[in-house]
Each structure stands twice: as structure tokens, then as C-alpha cells.
């Protein structure tokens, strides 16, 4: 019985967003002999959904970035359009509400630089103009970043044409923010998204912070009407229509290497399949420490890289279906960031524990997608993004109790901060932890956020040195561990970058 051909041009490990984007990009450039092997029985990795008692529940933090409205598509939106992946996008109504109890901050910001600056001006008279300037700086960095990630340019020309990008490269988000001398409250409000890039602002590169702020406030964010699963399913269908073989329930355990070059993979069920190129959705940590066969083919440089890199944050998410409409429950905001304080040191220390967590983000999906639930119900989640370390010592017997404790604390904190009562309205509840992520998608230590964006691993430095970090010929990586880092939007970029790597080698080898 033969389930596979003897040989494929490209094997992609993992049918997540990055793996599928890689396949689409390759197909667009004429490479069609592709096999995708996915561990789970669904496409999309974490961009999926599940059904509990007849109600479909979103599995992710689920905002898609860099989409933009139809008439002004941003990078990722353009890619989907060009690839013919037709997704029913719904625009998220506001950027966020930010609630900080220590200083009593409570403000809601919408996308659009003018609009959000105006909203800040209303509460902090005299500062709207400066916020607007700051957002425009972020936007210039955003444009430069998008341009330069796909174009080579000399240093002098870069300085001339992208001065703000160049001049802020060497600084942290905090250092650049400080030059604006904002009042503390305004700074705190602007920092609310910090957790979405998983690093405190005093070690977070400004480039990344600016990119994130501009992306959210310029284009707004989007969700698919049919949940993240719609995006994943439509990508998968397109990839298959264009001739790729896509197999579910196939975990790749080994990447076969000879004389410094990949030649195939082996799956958990024992199939050995040969190919010219491998794109790994598995983290470099897993690949270099466990998957390369023989292990003697792992270069020392690769080990040094995985030992030097720090993992970013991981999710603890309480996902609920609540009895009652958002209105009946008193939930008026799609997204609330809430915290008792904005002292980065303290929040960062808190994120290294097993809770109770202080910095929470809540999402009410109904407010972006009113049809996400049967009538009279609300889909609601509360998420903390801690570091994985504290989870490494959890015992299996204690795991269920820990999940419940975390959920109870997070619900309690949310209720206390917002005054909205939900604990007695729970109809369905699931608690997602790094262990959940590890089980379903196999991500290293359950990390959804790839490697920490800090000044030792700056995204632009990653781009500059990418070539010298291809340790094994024919092996590319595509996932949150890629250069662009975490988030569903960046996964599309990471997947395309992996495709570009293969296309470049194909050209060279010709």
C-alpha cells in the first residue's frame, strides 16, 4: 500500500498558517510538487475552532492583522486577495478599552490615528497632537519595515529614504516613548498592546512596537465570519486545488539529512518520504535537539542559536460561552486590557508565576461577529500571556486543578476590575494553557509567540543575518519562530519568507 509518492520537491511540516502561506507562495511561483504533513486532524494550527454542546468556539485570540479594508488592503489582505483565498472579513469595532485601577485610567480607543489621538486629547487635553505625531512616526516605521523586508538597500540610501526607521533601530520602545515626555497615563495607554509582542517596553525594540501600533490603529483588525477556521479551511482548499497533497494526523518526527543537506522526513507512523526541500513548522529547538537524523548532522552554530534564543510568552486562556447577550451581561467592549498597575517590572515578574495574573485581555467575539453564537448567548474569553517557565514543573495529577484555579482567578480579577459579573453565567468553559498548545500543535514548550523580541534578537538584525543562519541546506523554517515573530498576520509573512528561501535556492542551483 502506498500513501505517498517516492519523492516530492517540497515537504512542509505543519499545516498551520505559515505552512499554508508558504505553499500558496510556492504554487504562485510555479512550484507545485508539495506535500503538507499536519499533526492534527484540522488545518490552521491554533487558527481553528471547536464545538461544545452545539456551540462553535473560537480557539485563538483571533484578530487578524495587516488586512485592511477592501479599498486599502494591507500586506496580508493583499496576499489573500492575490491568492484567490476569499475570506469573509469582519472589521473589529474598536482597538481596545484600557482599564488600569491603580491610577484609575479607563479609556476606549478606536482605530484611525486622528480618531485615537482625539480620544486621548479629550481625556488629556494638550496631548492629542503629540500622540498623533507619535503614531505617524510609528506609521513611517511600519511602511519602511514592510518595504525593507522585501527589498535590499544600501545603508546610505536607507538613511536617506527611511530616516526614522534607521534612527530608531537601536532603541527600545521605552527609549523612544520617553523622548515624547508624555504624562504617565498617556504612556500607559499607548503601551497597552505590549503583551501582544510579549516583552516589556524597556527591552522591546521600538521597531516592533511601532509596527504593532501602526498596524492596529491604521488598518484596524479583522476576524473571519466563520471563525479562524474559515481562514484555515479556505487556505487549505486553495492549496489542495492547486495540486498539493495535504495529509492530516501525520506528525513528522525526523528530518533526514546527509552531507549537510535534507533529503526527506520520517513520520510517527513510520513512513519515510523523500524530498529536495523541507519547511519546518516545528521550532528550531525541536528540530536541532530531536529531529535531525543523524544527530551528527546538527552544526554547532545551530545549537548555539537555539541556546541563545529566549522563548516569548504563552497563553492561558479561559474561553467561555455565557448565558445572556453582551448587552444583558453589560459587556460593551470587544477588547479590554485590564490591569491593577502598569509597572513593567512588576507585571513581568508576575508573568513568570502560575498566577494570579494581573495583566489580562478579554474579548467578546459577538461585538465583532454578532452571529458567532446562537441567539441569547455570548462568546467571551479572558487571556493572560505568561512565560512558560512556571508550567515546566506542573505535575499531571495537579493539572486539572491548576487550570480551574487559574480560570477562577482570572474571572475574579476581570469581575473586580470591570464590575461585570460572569461567573454564574457560564454555559461552556475551556481553559487553554501551554500544555493544550503543545498537545494540539506540538509547538515547543507550548509557545505560541516564537522567540522573544528583545534587543539581543532584534527583528532587523534577524533579517540582516538570516542567510548565515541556514545551517542545513534545503531546510527552511515557517512559524511563530520565524523572523517576523508571533501573531496570525506575521505567520503569513513568515511562510512567504520560507517560500522565498526555497525559490532563491532553486534559482542558485540552476
Amino acid at each position, binding site marked *: 500500500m502506498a*500513501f505517498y509518492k517516492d519523492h516530492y520537491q517540497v515537504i512542509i511540516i505543519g499545516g498551520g498558517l505559515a505552512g499554508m502561506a508558504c505553499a500558496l507562495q510556492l504554487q504562485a511561483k510555479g512550484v507545485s510538487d508539495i506535500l503538507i504533513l499536519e499533526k492534527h486532524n484540522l488545518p490552521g494550527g491554533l487558527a481553528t475552532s471547536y464545538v461544545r454542546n452545539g456551540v462553535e468556539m473560537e480557539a485563538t485570540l483571533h484578530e487578524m492583522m495587516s488586512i485592511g479594508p477592501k479599498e486599502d488592503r494591507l500586506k496580508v489582505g493583499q496576499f489573500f486577495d492575490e491568492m484567490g483565498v476569499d475570506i469573509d472579513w469582519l472589521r473589529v469595532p474598536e482597538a481596545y478599552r484600557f482599564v488600569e485601577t491603580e491610577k484609575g485610567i479607563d479609556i476606549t480607543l478606536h482605530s484611525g490615528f486622528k480618531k485615537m489621538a482625539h480620544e486621548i486629547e479629550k481625556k488629556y487635553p494638550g496631548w492629542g497632537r503629540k500622540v498623533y505625531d507619535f503614531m505617524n512616526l510609528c506609521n513611517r516605521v511600519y511602511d519602511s519595515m514592510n518595504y525593507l523586508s522585501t527589498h535590499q538597500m544600501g545603508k546610505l540610501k536607507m538613511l536617506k529614504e527611511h530616516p526614522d526607521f*534607521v534612527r530608531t533601530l537601536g532603541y527600545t520602545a521605552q527609549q523612544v516613548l520617553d523622548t515624547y515626555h508624555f504624562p504617565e497615563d498617556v504612556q500607559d495607554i499607548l503601551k497597552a498592546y505590549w503583551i501582544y509582542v510579549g516583552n516589556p517596553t524597556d527591552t522591546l525594540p521600538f521597531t516592533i512596537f511601532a509596527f504593532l501600533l501602526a498596524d492596529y490603529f491604521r488598518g484596524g483588525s479583522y476576524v473571519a465570519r466563520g471563525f479562524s477556521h474559515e481562514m484555515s479551511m479556505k487556505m487549505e482548499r486553495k492549496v489542495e486545488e492547486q495540486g498539493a497533497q495535504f495529509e492530516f494526523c*501525520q506528525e513528522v518526527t525526523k528530518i533526514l539529512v546527509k552531507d549537510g543537506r535534507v533529503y526527506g522526513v520520517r513520520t510517527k507512523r513510520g513512513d519515510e518520504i523523500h524530498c529536495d526541500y523541507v519547511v519546518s513548522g516545528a521550532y528550531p529547538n525541536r528540530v536541532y535537539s530531536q529531529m535531525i537524523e543523524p544527530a551528527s548532522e546538527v552544526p554547532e552554530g545551530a545549537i548555539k542559536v537555539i541556546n541563545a534564543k529566549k522563548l516569548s510568552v504563552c497563553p492561558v486562556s479561559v474561553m467561555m460561552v455565557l448565558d445572556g447577550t453582551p448587552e444583558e451581561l453589560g459587556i460593551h467592549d470587544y477588547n479590554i486590557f485590564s490591569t491593577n498597575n502598569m509597572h513593567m517590572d512588576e507585571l513581568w515578574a508576575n508573568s513568570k508565576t502560575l498566577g494570579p495574573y494581573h495583566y489580562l485581555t478579554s474579548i467578546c467575539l459577538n461585538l465583532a461577529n454578532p452571529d458567532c453564537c446562537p441567539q441569547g448567548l455570548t462568546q467571551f474569553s479572558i487571556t493572560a500571556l505568561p512565560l512558560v517557565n512556571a508550567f515546566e514543573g506542573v505535575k499531571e495529577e495537579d493539572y486539572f486543578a491548576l487550570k480551574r484555579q487559574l480560570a477562577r482567578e482570572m474571572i475574579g480579577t476581570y469581575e473586580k476590575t470591570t464590575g461585570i459579573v460572569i461567573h454564574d453565567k457560564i*454555559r461552556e468553559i475551556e481553559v487553554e494553557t501551554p500544555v493544550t498548545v503543545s498537545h494540539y500543535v506540538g509547538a515547543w514548550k507550548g509557545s505560541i509567540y516564537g522567540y522573544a523580541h528583545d534587543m539581543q534578537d532584534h527583528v532587523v538584525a534577524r533579517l540582516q543575518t538570516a542567510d548565515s543562519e541556514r545551517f542545513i541546506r534545503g531546510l527552511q523554517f515557517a512559524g511563530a519562530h520565524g523572523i517576523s515573530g508571533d501573531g496570525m498576520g506575521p505567520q503569513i509573512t513568515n511562510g512567504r519568507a520560507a517560500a522565498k528561501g526555497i525559490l532563491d535556492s532553486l534559482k542558485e542551483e540552476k
Partner: protein
Amino acid sequence: MSGIKVKGFFQDVTGVNRIVKAREESFKEASSVNSQTDPVRALADAIHPDRQVFTVTKVYEASPTARTFRFEPENGHIAPFQCGQYVNFYLTIGSSKVTRAYSISSAPYQARGEKPFFEITIRRNRPYFVPDWFFESVKEGSKVTAALPFSQFYYEPLRDSDHIMALAGGSGITPFASMAKEIAYESTHDDAPYQTLKNVDLTILYGSVKHTDIVCGDQIEEARKQAPDQIHVVHVMSDDPEWEGEKGFVTREIMEKYSTPDMTYFFCGPLPMFNMVKKNLTEMGVPEKRFRHDAIAQPSNVKMIPGFPEDQVGKTYQLTVMRGIQKDVIPAKADEPVAVALERAAIPVDTHCRAGECGFCRSQLLKGSIFVSPLGDGRREMDKEMGWFHACSSYPTSDLTIKIPII
């Protein structure tokens, strides 16, 4: 030149050199020892293990027509589970490869410690494919392949009332046998590995035909004696003249009689009883969130499935099955789920709940038409729209081409 000034021109424009250098330095200084491990994956694997081999170490009577089978793991490890969850067996019976799920009837604490085990209890009151095999072929010393635990049918303190009414019919008692044993143990042992059910009150309303049909009666009675304040058992006999307790079906009157305010109702049993209980709860004004039920297997009599196209009964279609580039053509009866056709042809298919809910047997319809049972249709909206179906609860209504995972 316009633009921001952070610390001064020279300092600003040389940032790129600094970040590249910082990155290179961090790699240079890093250890070159290849020793990374992933304890989170180890924990995930311990909680969700793959299929394992188990040895049957005890078989004993659970009623005149039911037997309890005890299983011990060859590798010494059983994943933590919660009362109400099931174990999925992977069996070869004759020329068929089949999977079957059975609720665990032993308690979670019994799967910890030095000699961990779990038990299932099967009733065979009439000849039936898989129960027959268990009764005839599984003895002490037999080895079977199984995976556990699965399902969301368990007490969730974040959601459920700590006053539970268990509504059981026939062999649907097994999840509640597990629950009763665990309550008894937790409430009498401060060092119990789990404390989830310590303070839970459990009232079991158990419907049988005759008292000789009661499954796990002794096991539950033993638990009740240990925690008489927490566990209450009410048997209801539908056709037993000798019985002196409650008689008839599990009616609204009986349910109301034993209910206390704000209970969570758990149901496990056959489809007709499910329909009755659901109706009773609605009439009693019990909110939907207070009703939890186990997956209810698709009835083998398709006439019980609402909307089943009756003209299909007796027809056989051609089923083309794609697994990767492998193509097999097999027959498929119109009144059997697609999964059964695969099992008869010994094509492995990973069914679990066999109720349409859990999605393990999610498959792709490439050509042809199917009837999907509306009982427990657990598909995602996009799956419905894009032609994906659950093989355990979908019936062919034409020749079909499908794609399933390679197992």
C-alpha cells in the same frame, strides 16, 4: 534631513550596527551543548497519551448480564481522567478493524499510585457485535490496545452546581459508578490525589426494567455506604412487579420529587430516555446550562433518526476511499454510517464518540451525497459548508468518494 532624534545623530544612525552586534554576541556566548528538552510536551503527552497496551487483570460480574473488566497498563501509566470520560478501544474482530468507546466505571483515584488500573462495565442483554467479543474473547491476561481519556462529559466546578442529579438508563450508569466511588474516596481521604468531588452531592435516579438489570449495583452501594450523606440512589423499575421502590419511567414527577434547588442534571442512557428526560427538564423550567449529557450513540435502527431517507434502507453504494494517493473501493450500506463500511473493510478509522459530536473521524467528501444524522451533529459551520463530515454519523445516499487520514 527630517526625522526623529533620539540621542543624537551619530548614536541614532549607528543603531543597526549595535543590534546586529548584540545578536551575534549573544550567539557567540551561548552554550554549544545540545541538551534541550521540552517538559511541557512531556506533560501534554502524559495527559493525552497515545494508544497503549493494557492487560486485563480482573473480570467480574456487575449484574447477571453485565461484566466489569479491569485493565492495567503495560507501561505502568494511566493518564489522569475525570468521572464521565471514556476510553477508546482499538480492536480487530474477525476481519473488521473497529474502535469502541466505553465510559470508565472505576474512579480516577484508582488510576494513581503503585498499581494503577481502570475498569469498564459492559452489559450484554442481547447478542451484539462488540459486547459479544468482550464476553467471549476477553479473559484475565488478555491484552488490548486503547487510549484514554476523552470527552467533556464531566463535573466542571466552574460551571456546574455541586448538587448533581445523575439520570441513568441501563448501562448508562457507568459514569456515575465512577463518580460515586470517587466522591466516597475523596470525602473519606484527606490525602486523595484529587479533591474535585469532595463536597459534591450526588443523587442517582437510575431507570431499569427489572431489579436484576441493575448494573454496578453493588459497586455503587458500597460507595454510598461510605458517603451516605452525599450519595443517594433511587432505582426506578419500568416493569418489575416485585419491586417495592419507584416504578414506571423516570417521569417529571419522580425527577421533581428527588430534586433540590439549582441542581445540575447529568444524563447517560439510550435515546428514548434522553428525549423524555430533556422534555421533563424543559417542563420543570431547568435552565439549559444545568443539563449535561453524554454523547448518545447513533441508533442502529436508522428509523429512529429524524429525517432519515427511508427509501435508502437496504441499498448498497460504492465507496471510494482516498488515503494519500492510495485508493480503495469498498461497498457501503445506506443504512450504516460510513465509518462502519470502513471498519468492515478493515480500513482503520479513528471514531470515538460514534455520536457525531467529537470530530475525531472528520473526513472530506470529494464526490457524492450523504445524509448527516441531526442527532449530535457536532460539525463546525465551515466544515458543513465545505463538505466535511463525521464518518460515524453520516450515511451514504449515493456512490461516494471520500478522503480520510492515513492511520
